[in-house]
C-alpha cells in the first residue's frame, strides 16, 4: 500500500531513510539540511526507527563516524550542505576508498565567502571528484525514490561505493510537494538488510585503509575507479527494478522534448523544472527546444549523453557554480571533452545562473534560446545571467 501526501521535501527525505531502515545516522546541523536530521532524530526518539542517531561535533566527525559505522556493518545515512560538505571533504575520499556504502543527502547550498545560506551547486562541484556515485533530483518524489535506490546501488557487491543524493537547498528541500511513499513491506522486499562483504567483526578481523606502497596504490585506485565506472550498469538495473516494482521509471539521463529540437539545454537539479516551463512556452510560440537532465552525474553517463547529443546542433549548458578560473564551468568542460572525443560538431554555450539563491526565471531560458544572452558574451567563454558589473 502506497500513501500519497503533501509534505516538505526534507521530511520526505528522512522518511525515505526510515523506509530504508538505516541503522546509524551521524550528522551536524547546517541550514538548509536541518529538517532532514531533526526529523530523523525524532523518528529514532519516538521508536519509529530502530537506529542510533548522533549529533556529533562537526561534519568532519559526522562523516568519520559514518565511515566507522559502515565499516562495522551498519546501514549508514547522513546529510549536509555547503560548508559542511567541504569540511567533510577529507573523509569523503576515505568513504569511497574504503568502499563503504554510505548514503548522504546533500542539500546543495552556496559556499562562503561571502556568507550565503541559499542554494547553488558550488558545494557539490567542489566535491564532485571524490569517488562517490552522485545523483541529482528535480523534485521531491525523485528525492525519496533516489534515497531508497541509493542504498541498493551502494550495497551491491559489485559496487560497494558511497552514494550522494543531491537536492537543491530551499527551492527543493523546503517546498511542500505531493509525494508518494511506498509501503515498508515493498521497500523491504526491494531492499533487503545490508550484508557487508567485509566488516569489522571480532569473529573475522580485517584491516581497512591500510598503507599502500607505490607498488600497490595505483592498482587500488584503478580498482576503485573501475568499480565506479562499472557501477553504471548496476545503477541502470536498480532504476529498472525500481520502475517495475513502484511504477516510477528513472534513467541516468532523462530528456524532455529533445526528439523535436536540434537545440537543448543541459542542467542538473531543480532548475530543470523552470527550463521545462520555458520549453512549453517556446513550444506554444512554435519554437522547439529540448532539455537533457542529468540524473546521474558520477559516474558520468557518457554513452547515454552521446545518444541524445549526437543529432543536436546547439547545446546550452546551464550551471549553478562559478568555473573558478577553469575554461568553463565543470559540466561544460566534461561535455566538451565528450563531444571532442566523439568528433561531434555541436555549438556549446555556457550559462551560469542561480548563484547564492539568485532567482532564475523561465524567461531567462527563453532569452537563452533566442540568443539574446549569448550575443552579450564578454571575454569569458560563458555568460553569467543577470550579473551586474
Amino acid at each position, binding site marked *: 500500500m502506497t500513501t500519497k501526501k503533501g509534505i516538505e521535501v526534507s521530511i520526505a527525505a528522512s522518511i525515505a531513510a526510515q523506509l530504508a531502515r538505516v541503522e546509524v545516522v551521524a550528522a551536524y*546541523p*547546517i*541550514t538548509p539540511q536541518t529538517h532532514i536530521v*531533526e526529523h530523523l532524530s525524532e523518528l529514532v526518539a519516538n521508536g519509529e526507527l530502530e537506529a542510533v*542517531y548522533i549529533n556529533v*561535533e*562537526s561534519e568532519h566527525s559526522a562523516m568519520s563516524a559514518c565511515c566507522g559505522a559502515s565499516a562495522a556493518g551498519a546501514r549508514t545515512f547522513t546529510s549536509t550542505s555547503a560548508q559542511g560538505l567541504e569540511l567533510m571533504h577529507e573523509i569523503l575520499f576515505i568513504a569511497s576508498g574504503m568502499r563503504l556504502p554510505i548514503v548522504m543527502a546533500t542539500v546543495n547550498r552556496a559556499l562562503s*565567502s561571502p556568507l550565503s545560506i541559499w542554494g547553488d551547486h558550488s558545494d557539490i562541484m567542489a566535491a564532485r571528484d571524490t569517488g562517490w556515485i552522485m545523483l541529482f533530483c528535480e523534485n521531491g518524489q525523485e528525492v525519496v525514490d533516489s534515497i531508497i535506490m541509493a542504498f541498493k546501488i551502494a550495497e551491491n557487491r559489485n559496487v560497494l561505493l558511497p552514494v550522494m543524493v543531491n537536492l537543491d537547498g530551499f527551492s527543493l528541500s523546503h517546498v511542500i510537494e505531493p509525494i508518494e511513499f511506498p509501503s515498508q513491506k515493498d521497500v523491504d522486499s526491494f531492499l533487503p538488510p545490508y550484508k557487508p562483504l567485509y566488516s569489522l567483526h571480532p569473529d573475522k578481523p580485517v584491516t581497512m585503509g591500510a598503507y599502500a606502497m607505490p607498488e600497490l596504490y595505483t592498482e587500488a585506485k584503478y580498482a576503485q575507479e573501475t568499480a565506479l565506472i562499472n557501477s553504471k550498469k548496476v545503477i541502470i538495473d536498480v532504476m529498472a527494478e525500481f520502475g517495475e516494482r513502484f511504477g516510477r521509471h528513472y534513467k541516468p539521463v532523462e530528456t524532455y522534448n529533445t526528439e523535436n529540437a536540434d537545440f537543448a539545454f543541459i542542467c542538473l537539479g531543480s532548475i530543470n523544472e523552470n527550463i521545462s516551463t520555458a520549453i512549453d512556452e517556446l513550444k506554444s510560440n512554435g519554437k522547439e527546444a529540448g532539455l537533457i537532465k542529468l540524473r546521474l552525474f558520477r559516474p558520468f553517463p557518457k554513452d547515454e549523453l552521446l545518444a541524445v547529443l549526437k543529432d543536436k546542433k546547439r547545446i546550452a549548458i546551464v550551471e549553478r557554480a562559478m568555473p573558478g578560473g577553469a575554461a568553463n564551468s565543470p559540466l561544460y568542460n566534461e561535455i566538451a571533452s565528450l563531444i571532442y572525443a566523439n568528433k561531434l560538431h555541436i555549438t556549446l554555450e555556457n550559462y551560469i545562473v542561480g548563484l547564492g539563491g539568485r532567482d532564475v526565471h523561465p524567461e531567462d531560458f527563453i532569452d537563452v534560446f533566442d540568443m539574446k544572452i549569448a550575443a552579450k558574451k564578454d571575454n569569458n567563454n560563458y555568460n553569467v545571467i543577470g550579473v551586474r558589473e
Partner: protein
Amino acid sequence: MAEVTKLIHKYLRHDKKFPHVWCPGCGIGIMLGALIRAIDKCGFTKDEIVLVSGIGCTGRLPVYVDFNTLHTTHGRALAFATGVKLANPKLKVIVVMGDGDAVAIGGNHFIHAARRNIDLTAIILNNSIYGMTGGQYSPTTPYGMKTTTSSFFHIEQAFNISELAVTAGAPFVGRGTVYHARLLDSLMEKAFLKKGFAVVEVISHCHTQFGKLNKMGTAVEMMEWQRDHAVTVEKAAQMKEEELKDKFRIGILIDKELPVYLDEYEKIRTGSSGSGDRRP
C-alpha cells in the same frame, strides 16, 4: 544626548544594519551592550580593534559594530584571529563565538589557543544550544534537556566551558550572565586589558528554542533562572559542595600570569638575530 545613545552612535552601525536579526528578548544584545561599554571604558580606538566571529546567532555580532570585523566560518574564528594577531600584534583582537562555535566544531582551536596563550580575548555566549540552526543540542546542552535533536531528553554530559578553559591553560577566565550585566561589563574590561588568552563565558538564554522546548518560560523568566542559579566566586568559597550542586559560579575563575606567546617568540627572535623589529 544620553550616555547610552552616545555609545550607540559611536560604536554601532545604527543607521545601516538595524533592525538586527536577534529575537526580541535574546541575551546577545545585553552581551553586545557590555562589550561596547567595556571597550569604551578601556579607551581603545575603534580602528585598533578587530572583532572576529564565527557563525551563529552570536556570530552575527560583527555585522552591527563599527570596528574592523572579520566574519569567518563556523568554528574557525580563533584560528583566523591567531593569524590576525601574529601578523599585526598591535591590534586588539576580540573573538566572539557561540557555544557551538567555541567548543563543538571549534573545540580544538579553543583548547589550543588557551594552551598556547596567545594574546586574544575570547567571548563565548553560552545559550546551551545551536540557536541559529534551530535548536539542536550542543556540547553545553545539559544532560536531560530537550532540544530539536533530543526530543525526550539529552543523554550526553555537557562541557563546562570556563573549566575547560582553565584546564587548557588560559591565564584569565571569567564567567558572567546576561542577568548580571554590570558584572559582565567588568569581566570584559578585565579580559580586554589582560595580556594573554582571556576568556569570558557569558551564560545566556535562547528562550525561543531552548526555553520553549524545556518549558523555561519567557526571556525574563530565564534571566531569573540565571539570577537564582549563579553564585559569585566569593560566595561559593563559603558554601558546601552540596549547596552548590545545581549552581554555577560567576566572577573571575582564574587570573594568573603566564608567558605570552608573542613575547616569547620575540625573545627567541631578537636573541638569535639581534636585529630590530621586522614586523609590519
